[in-house]
């Protein structure tokens, strides 16, 4: 049987399949459908220093081969996570990562510092790319200086594996990736959602409460794949690829483009057990093509 394990910086994963933040809750919501311990990792819901109510309803619109959302980082805050969620999720035998968001470099850093104290959280994913919040979020992720400022502040207080989630809503994602690499990021994950909108022709108004939202699902996959390809050529740190992965073939394509690991997001809504099928499918692919390790796929299409 082929070796499925991969490393993201110092973080070892039993296989390259993780779940994307905001699409899998804290994992426990999917316990009826998935053997959570089989996952490479779970990236839990975006967490901020203070609790956030998120945006008003409606927060979702179905689109061709995808969906828009403008949830706006609804969460109960980092302290609630540490006290109430962490004791539950730490029991799982998979890597639990926390997606960290903020509205200033200081708030990102303070949130990361509190999570650093949790022994069984080996890594964070720094979200500098949420398109659905007024302050912070994507504002930091669309300039090299903004991205660097957040990574610098967090790197100073966070010694474990630091993954930075990049926004596709930029002219050159490779430049942003280089900027965060220079500040000491251990890895980058890409892409967050593409900013879009939906309009109700009958009511003549936007569908989403804040007008715009983030597009996800198979509609964005070609864009995501291209960006992983470009970032692979631009940086030396590992890449976590995501964006519209619906099956094992999609996941393999991201790895061939340069991703060391992948995240499954919106597909969890269509098939809550999709992650298991992706792991099985990758294993099957490796066997069919006589690969000894899944690591042999990384960047192999270049």
């Amino acid at each position, binding site marked *: 049987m082929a070796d499925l394990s991969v490393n993201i910086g110092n973080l070892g994963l039993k296989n390259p399949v993780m779940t994307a933040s*905001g*699409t*899998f*809750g804290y994992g426990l*919501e*999917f316990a009826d459908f998935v053997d959570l311990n089989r996952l490479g990792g779970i990236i839990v*819901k975006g967490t901020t220093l203070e609790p956030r*109510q*998120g945006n*008003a*309803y*409606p*927060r*979702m*619109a*179905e*689109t*061709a*081969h*995808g*969906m828009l*959302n403008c*949830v706006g980082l*609804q969460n109960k805050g980092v302290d609630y996570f540490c006290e109430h969620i962490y004791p539950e999720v730490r029991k799982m035998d998979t890597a639990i990562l926390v997606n960290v968001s903020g509205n200033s470099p200081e708030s990102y850093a303070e949130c990361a510092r509190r999570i650093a104290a949790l022994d069984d959280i080996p890594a964070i994913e720094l979200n500098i790319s949420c398109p659905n919040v007024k302050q912070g979020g994507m504002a930091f992720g669309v300039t090299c200086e903004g991205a660097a400022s957040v990574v610098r502040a967090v790197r100073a207080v966070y010694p474990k594996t630091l993954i930075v989630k990049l926004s596709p809503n930029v002219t050159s994602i490779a430049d942003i990736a280089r900027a965060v690499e220079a500040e000491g990021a251990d890895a980058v994950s890409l892409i967050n959602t593409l900013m879009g909108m939906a309009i109700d022709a009958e009511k003549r108004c936007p569908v989403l409460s804040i007008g715009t939202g983030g597009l996800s*699902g198979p509609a964005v996959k070609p864009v995501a794949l291209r960006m992983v390809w470009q970032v692979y050529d631009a940086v030396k740190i590992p890449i976590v690829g995501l964006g519209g992965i619906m099956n094992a073939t999609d996941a393999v394509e991201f790895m061939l483009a340069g991703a060391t690991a992948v995240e499954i997001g919106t597909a*969890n*809504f*269509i*098939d*809550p057990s999709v992650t298991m099928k992706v792991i099985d499918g990758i294993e099957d692919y490796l066997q069919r093509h006589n690969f000894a390790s899944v690591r042999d796929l990384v960047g192999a299409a270049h």
Partner: protein
Amino acid sequence: MLPGQFVEVRVDGSSETFLRRPISINMLDRSTNELWLLVHTVGAGTRALAQLKEGAVVNVVLPLGNGFTLPENNLQNDNSDGGRYLLVGGGVGTAPLLYLGKELAARGSRPVFLLGGRSAGDLLQLDDFRQYGDVYLTTEDGSAGERGFVTQHSLWQQSGGYARICTCGPKPMMVAVARLAREKEISCEASLENLMACGLGACLCCVEDTTEGHVCVCKDGPVFNIDKLKW
């Protein structure tokens, strides 16, 4: 499976349809191993579902959500004015009330159904409803039952209360029913149908703004006591 819970149906064969469709459980019969879904054709997804042929296999996640509150004690023969449930439905929102009526009847309580539609053709499954309780109707055009909305039915003028009101239908109708329930000081539960994606409480898309903040209709609902809603 509880009345008021719902399923998420995957829609195959429609390229326009990406997400599953949340549909309430219309009827469950364990003796025949049947589960009914009442599908109102409104868009591409429900159109594709409506075109399924007998014998087709559908991919369904179930049961989801919480369900209506059933009486704690068996209400055998307690069909006094104060002991009955009033089930108020509008349009396709009548669907979960049929299964709820069946479960109430099984507990010895004959519910009162008050069902409304635009016209007689919108009022479905009336023979099924009559098996389990007393049925009162309204239509906006007067083609069946009393003319008007469910909240204008003469039933509301009668003295005597109900143990609980359960309602499902268009939001304006449920808001009006909730107002009447408050006036009459009757406990009331409403089943919401906010737009959903995951159905499992993970994506936080279907939230309702409640007295406890934004909560997921799919997991914390779809049935809410109106005291929790900001209506």
